[in-house]
């Protein structure tokens, strides 16, 4: 036993409601008529489809290739025929759509060729690649690719591996039953993860309201050295990654930092079990345990092929008539499903049928009276009421200064708020607004840079133009002086810009005068004169007139004797 556990501040103790779904062992969900397998099921990029409509696939066949290293592969959950690769709605709070592979199962469950690997003989790098190609992601809900979490680097070595079996959300029991029934496999998976990370010790944290899971895991780890099963006090959110790390090691990981920087890394028990299947049995991640509970007749846990429509699962547990909505995840952090014809993904740990009786609507929102209940409940040790005022006032700078991004959106504050303020909604609003502002700022920075470059370019072009003009002028001056034709193009070598510039006015005048002269000469040369072909007496008259005009011109040219 560990000498002492550390405590995390805050937290709440809602009724656990775990018994409902733990009475029966994990059952296998039947194969549905159609599987809709989203290609994007982990943090990172969207894997590229490897199959096309009409293609036959085997169970475990790769159908989505990880894009780069920053996502995990996607596999066919059963054997069958690909019907389509198309965009479908995902189980997501805002009803996002993304590419999915639709498969019609043939019911034969024919596996690809499975090659077990002896992990002890493999290098960590090879094993990480294997995890990526087997589609192993965090099954606690965040679905972060596991191979990335095991990556060593500048961050440092993972000395302590934390295994998360806390399962602190009310109602959810998929990890509990997995530990009760498949502790052996979990422990083998932990050994693989430990091997890859070359961790010195493993701490398995389980909330003390799961005595059977604790006993099973203790039995499975009895022979292992450096592995300890640690019951942790039942208090939501003890299973939050940061809270569990804090409870087991005393280390606090702030926002924006990762475990390896502090020598720890955390994996869910389900992830460990999947790693064991992937490495030691050669079976990629094609199913997961889902808790179906809440306002249903036969709550329980099911092993569900990824891509199974939630409707098909609900038929297994028979939701009661007064069910008004379904929540994916638990009641503290889960979201209301926009529809139920959506597929189960690697993130689907629980489908919770809600009714007004089970989750009564909260009363009308009252003003905050600064009672501090939220502050006492906040596991991130924030001042939720201050963040509320700042978010409400769109004072995002202040919200950030008060560490709003350290909020893990666990819901404790809103759970205890006597004024029924939906605090987490305010924080989500502030965070998304800030992220949008950040994007806008990045975009406007880019626009400003483009604008500044454009100005710079225009200036440069103008300057070059002026230089060219000056050079041309200098050449023209030389031409005028030398009696040459001014049309000769100046060569850069001949340019003498500096002395030419101050004399621009003068040279301009000369140029203009020369141009006028040219134009006159041209005009005279081209236009027929009305004085051609005239009678002699007319010519004499014209000559007389011309003489008078010439005289007048002479007079006009002479400056007046006295200034006017």
């Amino acid at each position, binding site marked *: 036993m560990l000498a002492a556990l550390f405590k995390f501040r805050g937290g709440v103790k809602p009724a656990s409601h775990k018994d409902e779904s733990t009475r029966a062992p994990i059952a296998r969900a039947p194969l549905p008529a159609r599987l809709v397998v989203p290609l994007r099921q982990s943090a990172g990029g969207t894997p590229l489809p490897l199959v096309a409509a009409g293609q036959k696939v085997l169970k475990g066949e790769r159908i989505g290739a990880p894009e780069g290293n920053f996502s995990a592969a996607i596999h066919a959950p059963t054997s069958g025929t690909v019907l389509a690769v198309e965009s479908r709605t995902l189980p997501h709070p805002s009803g996002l759509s993304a590419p999915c592979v639709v498969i019609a199962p043939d019911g034969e469950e024919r596996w690809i060729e499975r090659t077990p690997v002896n992990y002890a003989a493999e290098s960590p790098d090879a094993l990480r690649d294997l995890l990526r190609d087997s589609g192993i992601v965090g099954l606690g809900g965040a679905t972060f690719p596991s191979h990335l979490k095991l990556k060593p680097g500048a961050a440092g070595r993972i000395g302590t591996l934390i295994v998360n079996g806390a399962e602190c959300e009310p109602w959810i029991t998929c990890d509990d039953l997995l530990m009760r029934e498949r502790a052996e496999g979990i422990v083998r998976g932990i050994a693989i993860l430990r091997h890859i990370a070359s961790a010195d010790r493993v701490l398995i944290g389980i909330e003390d309201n799961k005595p059977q899971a604790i006993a099973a895991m203790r039995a499975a780890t009895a022979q292992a050295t450096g592995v300890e099963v640690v019951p942790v006090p039942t208090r939501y959110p003890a299973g939050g990654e940061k809270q569990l790390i804090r409870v087991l090691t005393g280390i606090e990981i702030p926002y924006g*930092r990762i475990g390896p920087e502090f020598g720890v890394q955390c994996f869910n028990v389900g992830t460990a079990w999947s790693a064991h299947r992937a490495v030691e049995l050669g079976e990629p991640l094609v199913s997961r345990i889902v808790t179906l509970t809440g306002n249903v007749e036969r709550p329980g846990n099911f092993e569900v092929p990824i891509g199974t429509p939630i409707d098909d699962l609900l038929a297994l547990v028979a939701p009661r008539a007064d069910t008004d909505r379904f929540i994916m*995840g638990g009641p503290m952090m889960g979201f209301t499903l926009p529809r139920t014809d959506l597929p189960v993904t690697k993130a689907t740990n629980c489908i919770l049928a809600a009714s007004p009786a089970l989750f009564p609507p909260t009363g009308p929102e009252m*003003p905050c*009276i600064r009672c501090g209940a939220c502050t006492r409940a906040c596991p991130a*040790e924030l001042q939720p009421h201050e963040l509320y005022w700042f978010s409400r006032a769109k004072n995002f700078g202040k919200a950030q200064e008060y560490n709003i991004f350290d909020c893990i959106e666990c819901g404790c504050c809103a759970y205890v708020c*006597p004024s029924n303020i939906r605090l987490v909604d305010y924080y989500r609003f502030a965070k998304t607004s800030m992220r949008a502002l950040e994007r806008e700022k990045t975009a406007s920075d880019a626009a400003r840079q483009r604008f500044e470059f454009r100005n710079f370019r225009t200036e440069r072009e103008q300057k070059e133009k002026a230089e060219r003009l000056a050079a041309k002028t200098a050449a023209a001056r030389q031409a005028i002086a030398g009696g040459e034709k001014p049309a000769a193009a100046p060569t850069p070598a001949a340019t003498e810009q500096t002395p030419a510039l101050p004399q621009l006015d003068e040279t301009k005048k000369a140029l203009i005068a020369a141009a006028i002269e040219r134009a006159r000469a041209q005009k005279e040369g081209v236009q027929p004169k009305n004085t051609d072909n005239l009678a002699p007496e007319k010519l004499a008259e014209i000559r007389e007139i011309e003489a008078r005009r010439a005289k007048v011109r002479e007079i006009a040219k002479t400056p007046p004797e006295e200034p006017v």
Partner: protein
Amino acid sequence: MNGTSPHLHLPISVRLIMLKVLAALVPGIAVYVWFFGAAILVQIALASAAALAGEAAMLKLRGKPVGLFLSDGSALVTAWLIALTFPPIAPWWLTVTATLFAIVVAKHLYGGLGQNPFNPAMVAFCVSIIAFPALMSQWPAVGFTDFAAQMRVVFQSQSAQDAVTMATPLDALRTQLHVPEARATVAGVLGSHASFGNIGGKGWEWIALAYLLGGLWLLQQRVITWHVPVAFLATLALIAGGFSLANPDRYAGPVFHVVTGGAMLGAFFILTDPVSGATTPRGKLIFAAGVALLAWIIRSFGAYPDGMAFGVLLMNLCVPLIDMGTQPPVFGHKDEQKGGTP
């Protein structure tokens, strides 16, 4: 129905909190009636009626849901605290006017529930003691418990006479110690004064203990935290104790200060007002210690019989600054250097 998490909520409300505060005042009120007659109940009724009327009118004017806010209980808490801090034989119109001022001006003109920077009950007290110092110093003499006679004073068919009124121990001590020729000592004044009981004012000491009981229940119910009452009472006792040790003839002792005047009511029911008080743990300690210091100074050297109300209002002013300066470190940021924010 809201689809966002959390989908669970504790069965708790502003109304429940306010009702608990009112319930915690009941033992004190009961002892009050025991020692000083039923006039206080009439004052509570007057203040409650005025508070509810003022609240309803202001909610209507401000276009807020009247029923929802009227039933939150916050106006009643203000009303009861006003009644309990005013003399029980104060004229009815003073109680009503002061309560209306608290609700209309100190609460709603600042934005209503949750928005008032000053404790409304203490605003009412300060306004009244400045405007009507004589009426606010007219406390019933010990033994003046005849309800009919009390009512004649409250409704002013009979003016209060020396026979029925008496200075409180705090007042007596202050006025007599302020006269240098009298060469009065604390022990001398209190020993000769009819209103002095075992450790504080006669009757008042028991009321204070009943408030303490109610306050401890609020602590147990987690309506309030320990910070404010402990910091307030400890600071008051420490200052009073220090000065009393140095000069016992001139300064009253810690026990006297703690059980006299508005100290105990203030410690658990007035300073703990979350809206106008500090919210951080360290902030609460500073806030409460500040009130204690100011109250003791005003009691010992000021012109008013008690300094609680002024102390509270002055510290209310400092709350934004206190809160800003006492933000506790956040999870994962405890090693970061404090001070300058980027």
